[in-house]
């Protein structure tokens, strides 16, 4: 037991300390204590970060919108999220009479659990990963797939037409965007020569963002859709579906959905910085801080996008998934597969050559896609309103 966790220094220290007390005969007890300590630390830190992130998002969006944002509770409004959580806890927990009670109550758990589960394979810093799983990427895909089920559960069980609309949109969108996402992960696995996230990290002599920019762009778009973030936030489009699949949720169940959504942004940031930003460099003792900075940079861009651009329509979102991102991800995988065969050692100069080729592909693909998009939509940027001079009378 515990072999997977052996590389984690914190686990190792706690385990050794516990073994010293209970002795080798009760190794299972030491294992349990150490694992529980790790779970307590990671899950709580993650959810606390998610809570803090809701504050950051509201403040930053406030700045974008030339208003102040929450600043009343605590210094700079830092305790706003806690105040909100307390308020939600005291709210009446309403379950619609026509709702499917069991599914309705399970949905928030099914929403939050996979994002916590995904943490198991994320390397937060040097020797700070729970499991160096050799199928880490596959595990990530498997856990993130559960979230769409939770959305469907919530929408179906609410017995509300807005919720059902949201759930249907969510399932269509999440499944569509899963495919380019997986294709990008495949390309990254090819590039790194491993599916373990720790290996992906260590193989990045230069960040993969520079080696495979197309993959990073596709990943960012697809993960935005998976997170239900603008411009893909059709599942809870507040101007259309009020709150989409969580229309009927109130009290802490709503809070859990809310928290899961924001925590997922951080998780996506962690995955993005692991796969494309080189995670933490080996040379710095502050590897955790460095990792956190990258996650925050991703989160800031996500907030920026959310506060800036309007939302796509469902058919346009499908077009982007199947006609744009899917072919592009195929091109990406093919290009990287050929490059990996051509330069199998993947040393620094070889990665630089790959990067140059991939930047070229990205530029061509971006221009081509933009042209095709404009042509297919019949878009002219030239404004169509004109002023006419009329005589008085």
């Amino acid at each position, binding site marked *: 037991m515990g072999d997977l966790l052996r590389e984690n220094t914190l686990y190792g220290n706690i385990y050794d300390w516990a073994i010293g007390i209970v002795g080798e005969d009760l190794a299972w007890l030491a294992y349990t204590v150490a694992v529980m300590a790790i779970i307590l630390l990671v899950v709580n830190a993650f959810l606390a970060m998610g809570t803090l992130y809701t504050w950051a998002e509201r403040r930053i969006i406030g700045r974008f919108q030339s208003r102040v944002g929450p600043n009343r509770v605590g210094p700079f409004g830092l305790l706003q999220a806690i105040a909100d959580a307390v308020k939600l806890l005291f709210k009446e927990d309403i379950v619609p009479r026509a709702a499917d009670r069991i599914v309705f109550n399970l949905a928030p758990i099914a929403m939050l659990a996979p994002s916590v589960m995904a943490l198991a394979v994320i390397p937060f810093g040097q020797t700070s990963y729970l499991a160096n799983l050799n199928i880490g990427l596959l595990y990530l895909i498997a856990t993130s797939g559960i979230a769409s089920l939770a959305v469907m559960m919530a929408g179906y069980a609410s017995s509300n037409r807005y919720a059902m609309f949201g759930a249907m949109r969510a399932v269509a969108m999440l499944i569509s965007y899963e495919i380019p996402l997986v294709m990008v992960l495949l390309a990254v696995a090819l590039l790194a020569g491993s599916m373990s996230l720790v290996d992906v990290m260590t193989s990045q002599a230069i960040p993969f963002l520079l080696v495979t920019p197309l993959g990073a762009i596709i990943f960012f778009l697809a993960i935005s859709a998976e997170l239900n973030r603008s411009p893909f*936030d059709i599942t809870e489009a507040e101007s259309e579906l009020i709150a989409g699949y969580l229309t009927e949720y109130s009290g802490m169940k709503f809070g859990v959905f809310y928290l899961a959504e924001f925590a997922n942004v951080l998780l996506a940031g962690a995955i993005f910085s692991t796969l494309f930003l080189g995670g933490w460099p080996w040379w710095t003792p502050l590897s955790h801080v460095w990792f956190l900075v990258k996650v925050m940079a991703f989160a800031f861009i996500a907030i920026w996008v959310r506060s800036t651009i309007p939302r796509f329509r469902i*058919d346009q979102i499908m077009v982007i998934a199947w006609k744009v991102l899917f072919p592009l991800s195929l091109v990406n995988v093919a290009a990287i597969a050929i490059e990996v065969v051509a330069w199998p050692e993947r040393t620094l100069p070889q990665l630089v050559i790959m990067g140059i080729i991939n930047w070229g592909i990205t530029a061509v693909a971006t221009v081509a896609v933009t042209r095709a998009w404009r042509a297919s939509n019949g878009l002219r940027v030239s404004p169509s*309103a*004109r002023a006419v001079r*009329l005589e008085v009378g």
Partner: protein
Amino acid sequence: MTLHTQPVVVNIGPHHPSTHGVFRMRLTFDGENIVDVEPVVGYLHRGTEKLAEERHYTQVITLTDRLDYVASMTNNEAYVLSCERLVGLEAPERGKYLRVIAAELQRIVSHLIGTGFFLQDLGAFATPLMYCMRERERILDLFEMLCGARITVSYMRIGGVFQDAPDEFWPALRKLLDELPRYIDELEGLITTNEIVLARTKGVSPVTPEQAINGSWTGPVLRSTGVDWDLRKAAPYDAYDKVAFDVVVGENGDNYDRYLVRIREIRESIRIVEQCVKQIEPGPVRATTAMLFKPPPGEAYVPVEAPKGELGFYLVSDGSIKPYRCHIRAPSFINLSLLREMMVGWKMSDAIVSLGSLDFNMGEVDR
């Protein structure tokens, strides 16, 4: 195996973030596509027309503020113009210019709000709305200088305006006129050529000029279809015959043109106010009249070009101090007449955006 499917009816409203108040639509969906629309109005009915029959002519002015509450000035203007026709009165020149300045500033406010909420309906997370609100605040500050109120202004009186603009009004207006074009540029830079806005609104819910005329559309929504009809030109009132401005028309009558016509009209409004500031001369702002009017029996209807379209008060006098009948031609309500033509066949998201592009106001729809 054949699956049995049936259309689903969804109530959009009366409590819905995008119905701009308490408008209600019963939308019948086939999947995401709309097959039928049934608008239901009346949730905000306050009986303004009946209330007007129970008040003196002057007292009705405060009721008009509460019709289209983002364009109170033009409501006042439409009402007092009809009253003046009934009484046989005319405002002095300075009063007329002040009315035009106030009405055009109000048009800017209304168009800013319309644009902001239109983009909110598009899903732009309140950012453009906040930008629009920021500029609106500055104009409301000017209204506060004029009459002490920001929303329910009641600035106009039968025979002129309530009072002359205070001294601090003119530099503040000058500053606004200098800065506003820059803000409109900023707003346009964010929106007009935005790929997503273009993809979402270009060619969506197009309305032909024939449809628009048959549906009695007026205002920016009519002009967006290419019909150059503007009451400020067709039947000039107040000082509109003394200022030069262009009528903005669109081409396709789609959601994008409806947005663009509004933005261009803001620029024209700035032009009009600039000219008014240059042309305005000192003098009385209000004709010396009695406070209580007793117009001769008869009727009057003077329509004005309100931000939403043709707004007019049809007043019938029986010779008493109260109007015998006050019918309000509310552009917001009449512009909703083409909902079915605009929405059927489009998706739910398009329907919401089309509704936003109409820029209607529930206070005026239900009266």
